[in-house]
């Protein structure tokens, strides 16, 4: 990220000084998220959608469902693909053009978190084995960047998928034809929740905001499923974690994740 995001030295010093007094720059406790709002159905023409505001970070996710060819060695499974784009209007340093390594990592981490949890039972999305399956595409557009895009995109995609309606297709002359007015919920087996934590010195902070993000020594995103098991993991940043810190992060991700899971469940029942 370019100079537009370079935090000033007085602020970064203040962030560290406050941590030593047990405080964060915006007054949150160490395991507290910023205000989180999840609104579904914001893009009515898409089969599913959600808009997430996590502090000042904002993401819109849309889900498109359409027939597709299965992957060569997976003819008995539907397709799930998740992408992310940091729109150039989201931040002065965000540049238009082919995605850089930050955006690619973001998309792949969000995708893995949902895929590896088995959230969508892909075996229920087959129209004709080996020939025609249903593809679910979740695309995240980040519209305002103030730190922790991993969780914002993850919650947006998950909420969008939870509220997605799968149309019914019939095969006529080998071609899938949509049957209007017969939609069903997506086949959901579990609700994955990612929790991103950053480390500044010896302190572990949940959901770093934009300023904290600039000061992080390292970060980790841990995704848990409804059983409280860990299904995906990504460490990032220029420094590392001790074993004790990683253990603590896992505990936090399970307890904080459980609370967010409830918020996600409520979002499915009609917005907010």
């Amino acid at each position, binding site marked *: 990220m370019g100079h537009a995001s*370079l935090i000033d030295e*007085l602020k970064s010093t203040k962030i560290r000084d406050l941590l030593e007094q047990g405080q964060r720059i915006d007054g949150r406790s160490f395991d507290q998220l910023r205000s989180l709002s999840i609104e579904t159905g914001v893009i009515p023409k898409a089969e599913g959608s959600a808009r997430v505001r996590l502090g000042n970070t904002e993401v819109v996710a849309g889900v498109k469902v359409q027939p597709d060819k299965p992957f060569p060695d997976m003819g008995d499974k539907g397709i799930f693909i998740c992408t992310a784009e940091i729109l150039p209007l989201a931040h002065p340093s965000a540049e238009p053009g082919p995605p850089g390594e930050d955006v690619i990592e973001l998309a792949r981490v969000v995708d893995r978190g949902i895929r590896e949890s088995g959230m969508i039972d892909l075996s229920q999305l087959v129209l004709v084995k080996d020939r025609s399956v249903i593809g679910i595409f979740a695309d995240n557009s980040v519209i305002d960047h103030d730190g922790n895009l991993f969780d914002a995109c993850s919650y947006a995609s998950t909420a969008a998928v939870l509220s997605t309606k799968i149309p019914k297709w019939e095969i006529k002359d080998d071609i899938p034809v949509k049957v209007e007015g017969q939609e069903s919920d997506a086949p959901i087996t579990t609700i994955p929740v990612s929790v991103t934590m950053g480390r500044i010195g010896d302190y572990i902070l949940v959901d770093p905001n934009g300023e904290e993000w600039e000061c992080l020594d390292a970060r980790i995103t841990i995704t848990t499923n409804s059983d409280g098991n860990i299904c995906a993991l990504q460490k990032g940043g220029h420094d590392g974690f001790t074993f004790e810190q990683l253990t603590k992060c896992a505990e936090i991700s399970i307890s904080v994740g459980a609370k967010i899971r409830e918020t996600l469940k409520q979002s499915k029942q009609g917005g907010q």
Partner: protein
Amino acid sequence: MENTKRKYVIPGDVITTGPFRPEHNVILDGNRIIATAVGISEIYDDAVKVIPLAGKYIPKINDLVIGKVISHSSLSWELDINSCYVGFLPAQDVFGRDFSAHADELTSKLKNGDLVVARIANSDRSRDPLLTISDRELGKIESGELVKISPSKVPRLIGKRGTMIQTIEMATGAVITIGQNGWVVVSCENRDGLLKAKKAIQMVEAEAHIANLTDRVKSMLESKGE
């Protein structure tokens, strides 16, 4: 707005017609004077101008500004001064005439992220504004907090003959350095004083166009006293 000489305008609005001199943020089209910015138009004497309510800082020579160091070459630092152009601070301004590019290390004096109080030494559109920090009251800022407001609100924050800023400083015990570029540094030993001063600054920015602001800021500062 009761005063017919002032109007809210957006770009393209015709402010008036007739023999007026177009000044800031207006253009002459035939005999129409047209606003080119979102703001408040003013007709005074024989001239028309618009006070803009948005936009970046336009550097003017001798202005005091707060800048943030964002990079450096071997000969100068580059500073973000909330303008469309980056400010340049030559190494000689800090090291003196005997500055030697390979002997003197720029980062020993100022590094990326440092905030400084500087003055615009020279500015014309053909090159980036030149800064200086070689006077007494200028230089690196060692403590305090940076608050950003729109440059168009700076006169309101200072107030007539400094009344607004003095009111805030006296009520909170804070020392406030205002850059013409809308960047403000607030320094206070007392944490509550700091928070109050920040709140007062944000209040001035939000309500700059509403009358009796000084009184309202005063009563906000006096309420919930310690």
